[in-house]
């Protein structure tokens, strides 16, 4: 049967670029859902800013993936024409926005990981990836600052905001373990990217410091969810992609 989907031949480098690209696009998509609905106008603008950064990163990473694959797939084909099972993003990032506390907690937990990851990737042996890292690191440093400031405000604000922030952390915590799954050994050996397990201490330090200021409890490490990198997602990704990919699936092959 005819399909509009593409198949991608995933080498370790292609897979790495797709993982990071899908992370950025899926989180950018979630943030863009806030546009026009945020608690204050300044936050409509700020969340749109973060989303724009992430969509920009996704575009560069898809371009890199397409180039590394060498099959002529462009950024839009990679974003719009892969199915749920081919998406490689972290489960954390596809979680629905929930309330503002959940959105902020999701952003903070991820930024506290991805910002040092990009910083460590600044000196990657792959020049394309290092160039993306140079820009992305500056952006994610701001994402970390912005989300940490809000988490502190919410945690140390009113009893209600404290409760909501704590609930958000508790709910998202089981999705944080996936960030630290090891990169492919060949990539680490070749110095293409930082190995996530090595960033755990940095992440712990950031999280502990901010949670202390926010007067929030660090949830206990229990069972950690996994599967995003292998395309086994939560039920939330399918509807997100149905929306994101709608036009390209309805009118395949059109130029936009």
């Amino acid at each position, binding site marked *: 049967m005819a399909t509009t989907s593409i198949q991608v031949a995933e080498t370790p480098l292609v897979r790495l670029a797709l993982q990071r690209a899908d992370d950025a696009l899926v989180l950018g998509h979630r943030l863009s859902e806030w*546009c026009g609905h945020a608690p204050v106008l300044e936050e409509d603008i700020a969340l749109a800013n973060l989303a724009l950064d992430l969509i920009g990163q996704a575009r560069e990473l898809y371009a890199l993936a397409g180039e590394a694959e060498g099959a002529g797939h462009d950024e839009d084909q990679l974003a719009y024409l892969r199915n749920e099972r081919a998406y490689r993003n972290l489960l954390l990032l596809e979680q629905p926005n929930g309330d503002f506390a959940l959105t902020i907690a999701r952003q903070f937990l991820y930024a506290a990981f991805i910002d040092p990851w990009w910083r460590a990737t600044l000196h990657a042996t792959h020049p394309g990836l290092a160039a993306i890292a140079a820009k992305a690191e500056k952006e994610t440093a701001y994402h970390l600052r912005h989300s940490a400031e809000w988490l502190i405000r919410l945690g140390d604000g009113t009893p*209600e905001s404290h409760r909501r922030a704590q609930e958000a952390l508790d709910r998202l915590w089981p999705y944080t373990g996936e960030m630290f799954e090891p990169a492919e050994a060949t990539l680490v050996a070749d110095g293409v990217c930082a190995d996530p397990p090595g960033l755990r201490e940095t992440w712990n330090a950031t999280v502990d410091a901010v949670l202390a200021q926010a007067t929030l409890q660090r949830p206990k490490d229990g069972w950690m969810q996994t599967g995003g990198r292998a395309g086994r997602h939560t039920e939330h990704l399918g509807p997100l992609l149905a929306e994101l990919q709608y036009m390209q699936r309805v009118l395949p092959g059109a130029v936009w």
Partner: protein
Amino acid sequence: MYTQGLNSIDKIAAPDGEQAERFQARIDADDRIEPNDWMPEQYRRTLVRQISQHAHSEIVGMLPEGNWITRAPSLRRKAALLAKVQDEGGHGLYLYAAAETLGVSREELIDQLLSGRAKYSSIFNYPTLTWADIGAIGWLVDGAAIMNQIPLCRCSYGPYARAMIRVCKEESFHQRQGYEIMLTLSRGTPEQKEMAQDALNRWWWPCLMMFGPPDGESQHSDTSMRWKIKRFSNDGLRQKFVDATVPQAHFLGLTIPDPTLHFDEAGGHWVYGEIDWDEFRRVLAGDGPCNRERLAVRRKAHEDGAWVREAALAYAAKRSAATRQKAA
């Protein structure tokens, strides 16, 4: 976006006396009035109303376009649309700031919007049904906004004039971007071209209404013109828009949905047909396709966000208390 020429003058005593004369003399000399300068109460109120309507329009205008951010057909278009809607939020922000220089708070103004007492441009009460609507809005709605707002860059009130200069730069970028979407669609597949024509059909007449009621019915023009809050008549701006837009539609190969439209060689203008002013008044009074929906969405965002704003205030209060304690 978007003023609409809706702004009626408050019916309070026209100012007279020496102060008022000096004020008028400054305006006649093209002086800018600044927040701390003396101004007639009527001038102040008229400006508050106009600037806040404009700000509300920017904010409500984020909704119809925001409707397509998650479904934009390419990553490039998605980023451009998100940036555009973000710009509109920024316009709202500096317009509220300009209104605040006249002694009202943003909270008061937002309260007027959410309670239905304040108006915003009628155009945003129409739905965005297809991707082509995003092109049509940029091309036509931002295009009409530019026609309305370029003259306001020389408005007599300094903060408003300066805000408009910045806003107009961004609106013309939006307009070009919208036109480029329409161009891509009209050069695309038959389905894309049909989508573009359908969007033009639905947005054309509501866009002509953006310039406000015909000059004969307009309540404000004399005083507003004398004060240089308004510089051209509604019909004059509308004609300018039609003259600029019709050739652009022809270049796209699209048909303006007005069978009577023709070029008047003698006058050098495109002559358009009868505008449905009943529809205009109905939409303005609250019975457009999306009025209730738009306000409900704004109210929900405001209510859902109340605990966040309270938390930010509570946290700021704690911080300043802590700083005071340290200083003591």
